[in-house]
């Protein structure tokens, strides 16, 4: 039996409305088919929707479910996957391609890294999208499906009417009707669906109930994103806008703490660190407009505390980066064998376990709790003070133009001073300035014209990629050197492993040189006349803008 052809709901929540509609539906169906209950009793089913914490599947138009030993992936697929799925008649109610994969021993309530999925068609379709994240249970729905067979004159089942009664977290959802197609009889299913649609009180259901289910849990699809996406407007007082941005960053930071503590996947820590860096940049670039509570001594305290928090997360993240890139690193060896690096991987894993314990202690500490509580209180005061002082002249749009312009000029000035003989540190400093510019652009993204914003960020991103490659390879070389020393100090490190690590360092050094060679061209594209013009267009006040 293929999945449902269409979903129908009944207007009105009350049971009598449902009973009246069902009487009408069954009477209409009996005029075209013989109706008999399915041989088997009503089927109880538990479906668990799975996605990454940041909704990567949902955002890509995919929906992954675990049902009774099977993963089912539905949604906008690549053309080849859609064609393969349709060849097997596997489609969902809305016609989207359905890919299925049997899995054994899957416990849907437990997060599981996408990479750890056994080979199969579902893994093939999601691995690039979801990795390195874990698949988490978004919602588990218990439902009972009652099936009525619709028979033709030969007594053959040509379609089925499904009545689904579902509940989530103990709350009942409105029942739904749907018609399931029997393979080879599509016309009969369409006919049945037309009949159901015409019955009194029945209307097509919107979507597949996913939003309703999340609503019952007090959530909505896509309710986490690591993007800033603060709710600010051009006319908002500057102080209030800055507080709203920082509150949003604090929300994101806090949203990731549990995932870091449970060590679900590496991206919780990554997102937490990004929130901390953005917060530190915002404090530096926008702190002065936050009213009386941040500038001065309180501001210095937060600056120090967020630096402490950033530093706390660094060792674990650095080791995560090594481990995440390990496969590529091993595959890139020319002289050494990938197996030679295995002792290094084991050493990194042990180190990471130790550093993660230290990180967890920090995140569970009173210092962290006091920091986040005080910071929220401070920001809420700043936000509300902004409302009280409506007369304040500076607006969010003015603040955005001022601080973005300043950050841009700083990048241009520092970058222009870099020559072929400049020390590596000058590129490292420029990378920090570029990050500040990127963050300030992101803080005020809702105020910018999207096309102009996209062009400027695209230029900047290409420059950042080059500087990032230069800096990251440098850091990795230094770390491998330090880790090799630590491994030797622990004793019993095979010579082949050290040789392989040496080869890895040589590869990184080669990449670093290539990035340095590329810098001039990338910087010219960003800070040259074209880049400056694009930035001017972005920062030019639109008609009607304040200031």
């Amino acid at each position, binding site marked *: *039996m*293929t999945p449902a052809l269409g979903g129908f709901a009944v207007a009105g929540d009350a049971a009598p409305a449902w009973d009246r509609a069902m009487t009408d539906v069954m009477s209409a169906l009996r005029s075209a088919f013989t109706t008999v209950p399915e*041989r088997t009793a009503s089927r109880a089913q538990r479906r668990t929707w799975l996605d990454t914490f940041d909704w990567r599947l949902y955002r890509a138009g995919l929906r992954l479910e675990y049902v009774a030993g099977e993963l089912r992936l539905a949604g906008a697929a690549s053309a080849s996957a859609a064609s*393969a799925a349709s*060849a*097997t*008649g596997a489609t969902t109610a809305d016609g989207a391609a359905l890919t299925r994969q049997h899995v054994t021993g899957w416990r849907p309530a437990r997060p599981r890294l996408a990479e750890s999925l056994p080979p199969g068609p579902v893994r093939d379709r999601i691995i690039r999208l979801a990795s390195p994240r874990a698949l988490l249970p978004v919602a588990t729905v218990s439902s009972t499906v009652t099936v009525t*067979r619709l028979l033709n004159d*030969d*007594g*053959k*089942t040509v379609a089925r009417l499904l009545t689904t009664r579902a509940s989530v977290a103990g709350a009942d959802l409105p029942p739904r009707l749907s018609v399931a197609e*029997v*393979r*080879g*009889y599509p016309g009969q299913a369409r006919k049945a669906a037309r009949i159901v649609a015409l019955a009194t009180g029945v209307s097509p259901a919107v979507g597949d109930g996913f939003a309703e289910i999340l609503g019952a849990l007090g959530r909505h699809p896509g309710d986490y994103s690591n993007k800033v996406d603060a709710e600010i407007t051009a006319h908002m007082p500057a102080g209030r806008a800055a507080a709203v941005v920082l509150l949003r960053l604090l929300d994101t930071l806090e949203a990731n703490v549990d995932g870091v503590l449970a060590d679900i996947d590496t991206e919780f820590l990554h997102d937490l660190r990004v929130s901390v860096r953005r917060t530190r940049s915002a404090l530096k670039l926008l702190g002065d407009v936050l009213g009386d509570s941040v500038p001065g001594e309180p501001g210095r305290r937060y600056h120090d505390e967020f630096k402490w928090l950033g530093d706390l997360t660094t060792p674990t993240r650095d080791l995560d980066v090594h481990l995440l890139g390990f496969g590529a690193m091993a595959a890139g060896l020319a002289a050494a064998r990938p197996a030679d690096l295995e002792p290094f991987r084991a050493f990194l894993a042990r180190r990471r376990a130790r550093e993660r314990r230290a990180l967890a202690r920090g995140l569970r500490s009173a210092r962290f709790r006091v920091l986040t509580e005080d910071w929220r209180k401070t920001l809420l005061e700043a936000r509300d003070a902004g409302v009280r002082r409506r007369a304040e002249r500076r607006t969010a749009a003015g603040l955005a133009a001022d601080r973005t312009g300043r950050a841009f000029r700083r990048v241009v000035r520092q970058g222009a001073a870099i020559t072929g003989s400049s020390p590596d540190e000058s590129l490292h400093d420029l990378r920090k300035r570029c990050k500040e510019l990127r963050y300030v652009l992101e803080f005020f993204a809702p105020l910018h014209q999207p096309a102009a914003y996209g062009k400027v960020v695209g230029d900047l991103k290409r420059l950042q990629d080059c500087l990032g490659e230069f800096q990251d390879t440098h850091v990795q070389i230094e770390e491998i050197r330090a880790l090799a020393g630590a491994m030797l100090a622990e004793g019993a490190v095979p010579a082949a492993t050290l040789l392989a690590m040496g080869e890895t360092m040589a590869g990184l050094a080669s990449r670093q040189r290539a990035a340095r060679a590329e810098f001039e061209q990338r910087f010219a594209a960003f800070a040259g006349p074209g880049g400056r013009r694009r930035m001017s267009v972005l920062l030019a006040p639109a008609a009607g803008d304040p200031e």
Partner: protein
Amino acid sequence: MRVYATYNIKGGVGKTTAAVNLAHLAAQDGLRTLLWDLDPQGAASFMFRVKPRVKGGGRALIRGSRTLDDAIKGTDFDGLDLIPADFTYRNMDLLLGGARKPTHRLARLLAPLAASCDAVFLDCPPSISLVSENVMHAADVLIVPLIPTTLSVRTLDQLTGFVARFDGHRPRILAFLSMADRRKKLHREMTQELSTERAVVSPTTIPALSVIERMSVERAPVTVFAPRSQAARAYRSLWSDLRALEPVAPPAGGPGGKRGGQSTLVQ
């Protein structure tokens, strides 16, 4: 995907009833199962209440202008689909004779189904023909119902000898005694002798029972309308014997091996 074929040169020996019940049991076990009713009489299609008609007829399927996938109909049972019979299958020998590599055409047509099917049952018409030879090359297991008589044994020996001469892929043979009547002394003796002395004969016997004959009245597998009957138990036992068979060992020359050899059944 494992391909099972119910085959016997004789008609009325229980090929279709075996194919219908075994396919239903396979689907009940969670295997994605397809039954292809190759017999133009369409008895298996009738039992599943599917009209014995394929768009474009056997010609379209054999020539490949219509894929097997297009011809599939869902039965009333989860996980069990059917490719119906068509009266034009009576000319299937001629159609196959016109194809390239005529003895392997069915195997080639079935190959694309491997992604969507775990078990395929071929219900063959009673004959020695190009169709039968195709079926032998396509099948992993030949399921051979035997009426407990001396002549049946002779037929089984001929079939075993013929398959043994295949150079490449050789299907396993699992014969079983069918329509056995315990009131007949000859049936009792043959049943005893064959199931103990012949390795290819299953220890399971399908007795002659009226409930099996009722399948054409109920138009459903006996495992559906009389699941606790002696017949249903016997078919379940036969299905267990089939599942216990090891996969066919790939012939020398690589995994999968080349399907087919030089022997010909039809001169």
